[in-house]
């Protein structure tokens, strides 16, 4: 592996999140280093997705601080997180059902498109030029993910595995610094999982994108991630390289239940 893990890019300190009386996250701290693959694991309802939602601004934690590249981040809406370079995919695919694969991925370029609405209405030179320029970039992503044959298909008609790939493509179109992946391999068969693993590692390798990954398949997690953080009932119970986590008694207890 040619990539080099860099400094801490995102530092989460003492994050607590509540919905009414329900505690989703309690006092969680961990950091994410540049260019690494960081996995978040834990049983169902452990608060993994909530953690991602906190990172990209969908949820606002009641307590705790988030440092992004050393600077404290203010309360932030998702589109602001996106403009600082945080992209994500979704556990339950959240594609734009009424649009084609191409258009879905093109929306990912939105932040980088600058022509105003009047030029777009008239389809004048700059608007058209910009459209073509971004189309070229999107076609690269389509090639990368090997979905050329379905570029004009409405995403609603695609099988599950391909939809997951388009979801990844849309996030990649943002050329993110940090890519959050929420169970990218859930519900896939072995071949699809292998493909997805390859894409994730390629993204990490070729573009140097930092990856935060939620995944249930332990084999995959232990294989591809550099460091793993383990959550259970909204609390952090383990953190470290895969081997450390694997031998952590508390993690074993959480996964296998008490008494083992």
């Amino acid at each position, binding site marked *: 592996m040619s990539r080099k893990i860099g400094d801490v890019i995102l530092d989460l300190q003492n994050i607590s999140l509540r*919905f009414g009386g329900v505690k989703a996250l309690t006092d969680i701290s961990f950091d994410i280093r540049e260019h690494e693959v960081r996995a978040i694991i834990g049983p169902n309802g452990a608060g993994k*997705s909530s953690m991602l*939602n906190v990172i990209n601004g*969908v949820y606002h934690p009641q307590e705790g601080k988030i440092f992004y590249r050393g600077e404290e981040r203010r309360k932030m809406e998702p589109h602001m997180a996106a403009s600082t370079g945080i992209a994500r995919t*979704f*556990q*339950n695919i*959240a594609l734009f059902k009424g649009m084609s694969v191409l258009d879905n991925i093109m929306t990912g370029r939105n932040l980088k498109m600058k022509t105003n609405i009047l030029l777009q209405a008239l389809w004048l030179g700059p608007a058209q030029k910009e459209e073509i320029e971004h189309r070229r970039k999107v076609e690269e992503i389509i090639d990368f993910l090997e979905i050329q044959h379905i570029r004009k298909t409405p995403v609603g008609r695609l099988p599950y595995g391909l939809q997951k790939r388009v979801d990844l493509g849309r996030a990649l179109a943002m050329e993110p610094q940090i890519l959050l992946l929420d169970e990218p391999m859930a519900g896939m068969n072995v071949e699809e999982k292998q493909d997805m693993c390859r894409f994730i590692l390629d993204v990490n390798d070729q573009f140097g994108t930092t990856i935060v990954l939620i995944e249930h398949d332990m084999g995959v997690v232990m294989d591809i991630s550099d460091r793993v953080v383990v959550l259970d009932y909204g609390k952090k119970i383990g953190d470290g390289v895969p081997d450390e986590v694997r031998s952590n008694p508390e993690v074993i207890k959480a996964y296998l239940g008490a008494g083992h």
Partner: protein
Amino acid sequence: MGFFVETLIGGLMAGMLYSLVALGFVLIFKASGVFNFAQGAMVLFAALAMARFSEWANIALGGDSLFLANLIAFLGAGVVMFIVAWIIERLVLRNLVNQEGATLLMATLGIAYVLEGVGQTIFGGQIYTIDVGMPKDPVIMFESLFEGGIMINKEDFIAALIAAVLVGVLTLFFQKTPTGRALRAVADDHQAAQSIGIPLNRTWVIVWCVAGIVALVAGIIWGSKLGVQFSLATVALRALPVVILGGLTSVPGAIIGGLIIGVGEKLSEVYLGPYVGGGIEIWFAYALALVFLLFRPQGLFGEKIINRV
């Protein structure tokens, strides 16, 4: 002060009637997720049926007993509303399961047109009266408290009472009876309810029928006050702010929302209206509901929406 209280009470009474129409919306929305724009047309239809049946029954009985004629008319109109509910379920709802909200909304607008057309074709398009023997004379109350006392329309008072009783009965029906439980289950999750053996189609007929009865009562009250005519169908538009204020899924919300809107309308018309040329009550109700929505998007008693991704 006496005048203020009088306006306030007038508002509460009018609000009770709004609640009644709003209740129809809420019932149907809860059970089938349909935002029923035809509720106003149902009020008109029911009132037309009531007015004409009572007229015909009175003639058939030789004008002896107005009470009996009204009773027959009420039962007859109830049966008519049941048939309406059944036909709507059969021909429309059943074929539109799982469609989007906007499509269903449009379908109910279509139903509204049909009901207005059919109602006026069968029962006639003139202005009719409903006389259920409501006392029309005002009474003066609380003379000891306020100078000159407070004038209250007995008719309004009785109407509010009927509305309150109806609301109570419906609440009991929803909370305590097996059918009510089934309706709530369907409201919660169509598929889950179906999977435990609750017949979806039958519950829809029941709930549209109940909404039809509610429309009938509303129609009788509004009709005996204002006469039965085409404009009754627009009552629905007056009641919409009530629904969004109270939350689309909440029965108590419909009641309290109705009261707030009723009072707000009356007070605004009396105290604000003269400065801006009058006639502001209808949009004021909407504005009130809107301002409220900006702070609580789910309405007064609606369930809080949490985005899960």
